[in-house]
């Protein structure tokens, strides 16, 4: 192979601030590409559980309600009691029939008087269903009324309160 003509390898010295500007622009570009979505496009999930929840559908015994289960939880239904378990504790969903036409009337039944024991009550409408939440001692409860059935979703584990809120807010009864 013949000798090649000597290559020109010299180049002009680049000022330091050019590197600085380039690094800033590069960093900005990386941020634009990798930044998380803005809150407006986030699902209404608990900040504790950014992963997609799964849907749990109860049996017809419990009216076939559906809830969204945060990741890390497993739900099990047994004899009209649903246990939603994680390594941090358990959230339960029970239900009873009632002859009352409203949740408030049911909770005001003099034989139980829950309405008088429930602390920090808050009346809500969850997916169109009459609801009340509050505390019985350190147990946080959601009571939800649907067609002569009263569901209660509760936990006494304070670290699960956000998950309880998320599950309760996802509670739905399928249309017949």
């Amino acid at each position, binding site marked *: *192979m*013949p000798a*090649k*003509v*000597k*290559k*020109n*390898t010299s180049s002009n010295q680049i000022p330091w601030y050019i590197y600085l500007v380039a690094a800033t622009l590069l960093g900005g570009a990386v941020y634009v590409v990798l930044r998380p979505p803005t809150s407006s496009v986030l699902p209404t999930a608990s900040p504790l559980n950014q992963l997609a929840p799964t849907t749990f559908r109860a*049996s*017809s*015994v419990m009216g076939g309600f559906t809830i969204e289960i945060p990741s890390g939880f497993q739900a099990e239904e*047994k*004899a*009209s*009691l649903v246990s939603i378990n994680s390594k941090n504790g358990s959230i339960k969903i*029970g239900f*009873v*029939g*009632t*002859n*009352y*036409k409203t949740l408030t*009337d049911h909770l005001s*039944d*003099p*034989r*139980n*008087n*829950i309405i008088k*024991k429930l602390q920090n009550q808050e009346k809500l409408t969850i997916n169109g269903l009459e609801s009340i939440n509050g505390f*019985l001692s350190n147990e946080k*409860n959601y*009571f939800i009324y649907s*067609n*002569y*059935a009263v569901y*209660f979703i*509760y936990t006494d584990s304070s670290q699960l309160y956000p998950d309880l809120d998320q599950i309760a807010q996802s509670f739905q009864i399928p249309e017949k």
Partner: protein
Amino acid sequence: MKQVSYQVLFFLFFFFLFFPPQILAVETTVKDMSLSPSAPYIDTGIDLFIGSYLDIKQWGSAALYIPGMTQSWVGLAGDGGCTADINYTLPGVNCWSLVARIGANPPFLVGSRIATYLLQSGRLYLGINHKLPFSGTGYWNMRIIVNWTPPPPPPTPFLKLPWDYLGQGLSFSDAALKINSYFDHEYPLLSSGLLEPVESQETVTNYRGEFRNPKYPYSSHDGYDWGRLAGAPLDTPVLAAAAGCAIYKSDCTACGNAILINHGNYYQTRYYHLQPTDLITTSTIQCVDVTQGQMIGKVGFSGNVVPGGEAGAHLHFMLVEDKDRDGDFNDNIPDGLTDPFGWQSLAVDPWSTYSFTYAGESKLGNDSHYLWTDAIPNLSQDLPTNGGFYTFQKLKLNFPEGSVAEKTKLLITSAPIVVISDVLQSVGTGFIVTVQNLFGTFINQFNQDFTLTFDFTDEEIARFKPETLTIYSSSDGTNWQPEITTVDFTTKTASAELDHLTQFALVGELKDTTAPQTQILFNGTNINPGQFAPPVEISLPSSDIEGSVSYTLYNLNDSGWQQYLTPFQLADPGEYTIQYYSVDIEENTETSKSVSFTIISDTTPPEVDISFDSQTLTPVFTAIDENPVTETVEALPKNRERHTFTDTFANQLVFTGIYTLEDQIAQFRIESLQYNTDPIIIPEANILEVRYLNPASSVTNVFGQEWIIKDELQLKLVYTPLTPVCNFVI
């Protein structure tokens, strides 16, 4: 071991045949003991013999406080939130539960209570199911009774729900579990007028063991209330839960119109708040015979209902046992009150151990047993002599009464997909079903056939020939036998009547048994057979005749098998071997194929030999390279030319120059040149000149060649006719 068990059972059969258990109670040993973390395993000093009847239960307070437990304290049932691992005395059951051992035999679970005949002899040891190191506080008080006359066996389930729930499209569970008010297992004292302690007021402990839950109505309730939600609104016909003799009750204002049915088995059912019309009888003296399911009244709102009036219409249903067998049920209220759902918790049933004084007599609460003839799925893991109904994922098991001769535990777990042959495969996963008695002995044969049902609603049975769907069983997971199977494609279920365990799968014959085929395609420059220039794109398309390909695997140069997803490129020179095969969704596997090839490397750009044609005096450019080279010439302004030489591997030499011919003097001047992507080189002014020394002469031409740089002659060659061409190499 199995042989010995059969011998023992054989012996026990004849032993109990001639000497019924009651006769054994000639001598009773009663001993109260305590266990604490400081002495977690103790010798009771009691020697037991085969055939003895052993009863161990809590006697007095029993609470341990163990660091790390998931609840505030544990009783004999142990910590329900902790399953013992292999470091515990008895793995697989609750941590810190009560366990026992007879002689040198393996330990077994006692839990909150055990009451059974013994199949072993030896010294009785009791322990807390612990691992070392073990610390904690508290203690358990227990009573051990040996050869005590056992209580009669649990009553046979005999009750049907007392309204036509099926006619409303409801299943038994759908109706029975839609409860307005539960039986309160702590103090079901409503009918007695006795008051419960303040700490349990306005709470209910239901049959699931949910302790003092304030959300379930309502405290002290001694039966079950069903209403509109359960399909029993106002005027719903109330049906006799079992055959018997019905009588009207009029002495209870709160009860309203009430019918009581004596079923002749020491149990009485009661139906309160009925409508005043359509009652089966209004006699409080003479009972009338009724059959199971016969209408005895209608759901109403008589007596004390909440809310008052029609809105409060419901059925109050209760069950009373004539504990003293005197034919009078009233004198066993409240102590004979029973929950027909039984007690489905590992904790001690507070009602069964509650002692109190009523009407001047000492009373003890009652044991509750599951007495519905219909089963509720997965009510507990217990498989008692009464039978049971269990569901696990897509599997259903229905054991009739008498399937087992003793109380057992049933466990269902998933098993991997079963492949019996190339064409026989399970529809989804299989299942392992085990049944053990209290001593951990596995029971694989049953006295009565049980029904096993697979629900294949969510399975892809399109892969299988439908007429071949069959339930298979195996005792070892290796050898599989087909069972007589009934397949219902409407309900998408397959059922079999069986009398044995342990592994089951719904098996079908695959429609597709042909393996898929995979090709290997190269997208690149093929230099020679099996030789490529980089880069080479490899793709592995596959196809399956009857089904679809599940996945394709390849192994490049023995670097490990990986899944092929998209075409990939190879650019590094070297020798390659790719193995590959595909598998279809039926797990039909193609035989692995192998292809070897080479990627050749060349990074050196071509060289160019410049010469002049002696006839035309035009320059001739000849590439020099190991591989083929292509040349392109592009005309540039002012007689300039750009010559590009590219070899197979895209290595390039590009140079520009000017060719002139004037007065038989040909000149070529190189202006610039570039090798591949190296910087462009501008050489110093140069001329490659060829001229005829005597172009007009008729004699043989003689010509010369000069290489001039910066107007300075660098080289001059004179040629004779015998060497007509001069080569000059850049």
